[in-house]
């Protein structure tokens, strides 16, 4: 069992995964999201280098086309 991380306010079992792996597992396109991890924005390159730890706080914002 993976330990719990809070993503967009909900507890999910994701500790130990990289942010990129989590995004892919959940079906997000990593090019279309803004990710805040423990109140710091992750750059595209950070997604693969950041491993989720127990009690981390993550916000994932997904963007759609049109403007």
């Amino acid at each position, binding site marked *: 069992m993976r330990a719990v991380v809070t993503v967009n306010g909900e507890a999910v079992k994701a500790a130990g995964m990289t942010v990129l792996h989590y995004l892919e597992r959940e079906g997000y396109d990593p*090019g279309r999201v803004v990710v805040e991890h423990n109140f710091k924005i*992750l750059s595209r390159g950070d997604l693969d280098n950041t491993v989720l730890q127990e009690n981390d706080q993550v916000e994932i914002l997904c963007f759609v*086309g049109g*403007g």
Partner: protein
Amino acid sequence: MIGKEELEKAFDARFPETVRKKLQAARVAVAGLGGLGSNIAVMLTRCGVGHLFLVDFDVVDMTNLNRQAYRLPHLGRPKTEAIREILAEINPYVEVETLCVRVTGENAAELFGEFPIVCEAFDKPENKAMLISTILKSCPGTTVISGNGMAGYGEANGIRTARKLSRLYVCGDGVTEASPGVGLLAPRVAVCAGHQANQAVRLILGEE
């Protein structure tokens, strides 16, 4: 030609003088001058925002006329040049700085870092995410107001403003994407642009 003071006096005098002065002292950047950005620029000019920095690499195309502020005589001209002309016909005393360049992850922080408010008005989701991530990461004094989800002709009331992060407001319905079968139309694009412009005004006037 109508003078600056005369035009200032015509600003809605029901507001206290401080409101006009705060707006006049404000500096707002707009990234992208399509359906969102061109309409945001027009609205902020009408509000009397004193300094605008407007960035887009593109030229006006016939397919822009269904929702963007441009008109037939602007076809083929850079959007930065066309918008400058449109804004000058509304209020020639707003300082308008334009740059015809493509915004990238490499130049975004340098372009926008000195602005307290940046309206994200790109079309492609990858560009939206790139701009927002870059600014929030590298420009600590900048708040971003983004447009996200305004395609089609669903209920206008589905478009909202939400403070998603401490320095990020997102306007839109969050889901309705321009895609095959669902295009962009003037009303919802203008509603979303109005949300973004209004949030910019709110921040200028000290509201959250």
